[in-house]
């Protein structure tokens, strides 16, 4: 089911200050896709999710789930949370401690007044799906973090909602379990093919899970796109920086051809992929460390020489900083390299990897 959000505003007042948690958000979340709201803490992503589910009331705007308006201040419509027919996985899982696994998962169906044998059948099927068969009578207080997570997922899926919402569901798991669960979640959601809205501040989670990512900052959606678009082709410096490690160098366009732009920067002139910008925009050159080529051909474009200032061995690579003029360029060097601190080094950057973004 498609979710349409128009002009959504939500302001908080605390200690005389106004915090614009949502500052007029317009967003269409396509049906049957996994959509991720990504952003730093305090950007409004959780508030937006809570508005969709109805746990928070916006100040202005409209929210439509499918063809039903669930909230509109103009039309004075408010559909309470329990009538919105959504599924949700909470950050804290919110597994009810006084119930066993069966009752936790059966709760939505019991509220739908479904016959008992039908409930039993559906719960069994869902628990099998999340690989928790045989856990029906386990008290909720005796589940591990990963198991609680699966119960939370089972509970969100059992009533077969058209939309399922995730509020940072992996943030309470330890690193190893988080990686495994992320893979499983990707598989589960792939099989189900329902609309999923996923909130996270973890860029790897967002890239790995999503069909579409919306990056948020200060109550606004800054950029919208597929994971590849967001990673390789961001329009904004904030997005490019947030989604992964990048060298960001202020740049000015001096020449333009049909395919390329020539910019001057602190590390010299660089030939970039051409992009159109508003003439008033200030620009930044963005280049990711993995695209620095340390074995450049002698006629390569964008050949740059610098001095290795720092090398830190972290296993799979050397994380190193290379001084070029006033800039420090972050690079990942082959762990077998013979380079050492103080050495001069030359690298090149392909124009298609040199991305101009607006500041």
């Amino acid at each position, binding site marked *: 089911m498609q979710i349409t959000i128009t002009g959504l505003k939500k302001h908080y007042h605390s200690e005389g200050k106004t915090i614009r948690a949502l500052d007029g958000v317009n967003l269409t979340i396509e049906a049957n896709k996994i959509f991720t709201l990504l952003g730093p803490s305090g950007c409004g992503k959780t508030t937006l999710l809570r508005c969709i589910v109805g*746990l928070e009331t916006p100040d202005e705007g409209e929210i439509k789930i499918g063809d039903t308006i669930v909230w509109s201040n103009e039309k004075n419509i408010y559909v309470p949370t*329990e009538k919105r027919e959504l599924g949700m996985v909470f950050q804290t899982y919110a597994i009810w*401690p006084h119930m066993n696994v069966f009752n936790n998962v059966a*709760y939505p169906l019991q509220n739908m007044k479904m016959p008992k044998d039908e409930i039993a059948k559906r719960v069994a099927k869902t628990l099998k799906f999340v690989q928790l068969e045989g856990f029906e009578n386990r008290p909720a*207080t005796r589940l591990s973090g990963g198991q609680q997570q699966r119960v939370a997922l089972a509970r969100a899926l059992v009533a077969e909602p058209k939309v399922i919402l995730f509020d940072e569901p992996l943030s309470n798991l330890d690193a190893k379990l988080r990686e495994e669960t992320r893979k499983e979640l990707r598989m589960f959601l792939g099989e189900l093919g329902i609309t999923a809205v996923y909130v996270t501040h973890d860029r790897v989670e967002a890239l790995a899970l999503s069909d579409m990512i919306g990056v948020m900052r200060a109550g606004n959606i800054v950029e919208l796109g597929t994971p590849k678009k967001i990673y390789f082709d961001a329009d904004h410096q904030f997005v490019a920086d947030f989604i992964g490690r990048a060298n960001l160098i202020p740049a000015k366009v001096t020449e333009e051809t049909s395919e390329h732009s020539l910019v001057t920067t602190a590390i010299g002139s660089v030939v970039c992929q051409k992009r159109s910008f508003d003439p008033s925009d200030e620009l930044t050159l963005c280049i990711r460390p993995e695209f620095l080529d340390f074995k450049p051909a002698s006629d390569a474009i964008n050949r740059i020489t610098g001095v290795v200032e720092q090398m830190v061995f972290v296993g799979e690579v050397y994380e190193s900083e290379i001084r070029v003029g006033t800039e420090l360029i972050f690079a990942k060097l082959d762990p077998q390299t013979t380079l050492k601190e103080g050495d001069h080094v030359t690298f090149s950057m392909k124009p298609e990897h040199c991305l101009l973004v607006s500041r």
Partner: protein
Amino acid sequence: MERRHSRLTYTLITIVSLLTVAPVVMLVIGSFSKNLRAFGDFTLSKYIAVYTDPMLVETAGNTLVFVLGSAAFATVLALFLAYLNNRTNIPFKFLFKVLSVVPMMIPHVLFAVSWALLLNPSNGILNMWLQQLFGLAKAPFNIYSMPGMIMVEGLLDLPIAYLIISPAMASFDVSLEESSRVFKGGPMRTLFKITLPVLRPAILAAFILCIVRVLASFAVPSVLGMPGRIYVLSTYIYRTVTMSLIADYGKAAAIGMSILVLSITLIYIYRYYTRFSDKYVTISSRGFKPAVVELRKGKIPLFIMLIIISFILIVLPVLVLLYTSFIPYIMVPNGQAFAAMSLANWRTVISDPISIKSLGNSLFLGIVGATVGSFLSILVAYVIVKVKTKASGFLESISFLSFSFPGIVIGIGFMWFFVRTPLYATIWALFFGYIATYLPYGIRPMTSAFVQIHGSLEESSLVCGASFATTMRRVVIPLLVPGIVSGWVLMATMFFRELSLSVVLSRPGTEVLAVQILRFSEDGQWGKLSALGLIMIFFSTLMVVGVNLIGNRFKPGEAKDRKPA
């Protein structure tokens, strides 16, 4: 070290056994004895006499209604207030802190009396005022009734119920409720299927503790129940030993046995539930922020309600006593009443030798008793926390035994005990009785203080060549000051206003304040009662404030050494 510890442990076991186990044993033997002078002369006649008394059925019925009614009222009100404080945006939240602490400083007997002054059917101030206002033929309310008793007792137990429920409500993970809403549970269903069941351990713990306290309650049943001839078990015992021609301590012991057994059983259930509640708390995950329910239309009415409850619990009793202490007889506050005001009641009380004697006795018991009690508590708490042997476990269970002792019942047990010693009818009978009965209140804050002191602090002192006594004096006790202060204050205020044990053990010459106030109340001498009651509240507050000030002077330098909890 080990040997010293075990010697200390066994000495303490002996002392505490004498204080807490002895009266129970004496109560049991006493209940099978013919009379105080024929101790140990086995007979079942007392049990037969008491448990076939036709009055008992009515008394037991009254007790059941009184106990369950008051406990339920206190728990429901506490639940409501805890919700308002922790989960809504009601203004002036400091009122809740005041509500949970200040009523403990007003002695129960005075609180009960102030309601008698307001709502008694013949000349209750509020009753007379309402009669004048609406031209009613008779008083609209009668506080000398079961509903009256339940209301007053429930208000008295509100703070303790609140102190148990409020922390549970504060640590409640709101996403549990939110997830219920998402999964199609409406507000009512969420309340009954999620919120209340998750809080159930705390609610039940509060309810059970209230039951135990109401079962032991004597102030309200004696001040408000007896004038209306509504007897509950505690007043039934009181009547058995004071109002019949021959005081029958055997019968009193026989009836007391069933209260004691019930009380101990309930405390075990209470402990079971409080252990359980920890389990629920741990599951609530980190990083949740308590969502606040925006009160919109309800804000003002709920706030007014909160103000009224605070007024009723804290201001009203003192106000009523103050007013009554200045007027010659009970009348509605008006020009005539203000014209008749004088210091007459105050003068009579100050020149009344028995009142002055009772004040002196209560001050002695409060200050000296609490000091000795605190000292014993420090030693017991030390052994409980630091010495982990079977013997120290045994010491812990006998020390907390008296937590479930209803004062009047254990008073009967002490009676059987003291009558065989030279302590009988001396102030020392009350002295030891008080320490025995309220020992858990002294130990509890000290054990939590000891838990915070790391063992290496003592060990390093011993390594430095200090003796055990020096280690205690120089290292352990200074770190314990906050615990000692709160333990001392709790004991001192409880001793200073003790009623239910005292009505059994107090004799001419060993009168104490609360008993003297009960006498005034039985005689209807409201003016003198009010003056003496205010003197009581004054000294009680003075002790609390004074000791807290002294304690604060110790804190700053020492507190740095303390291991964060």
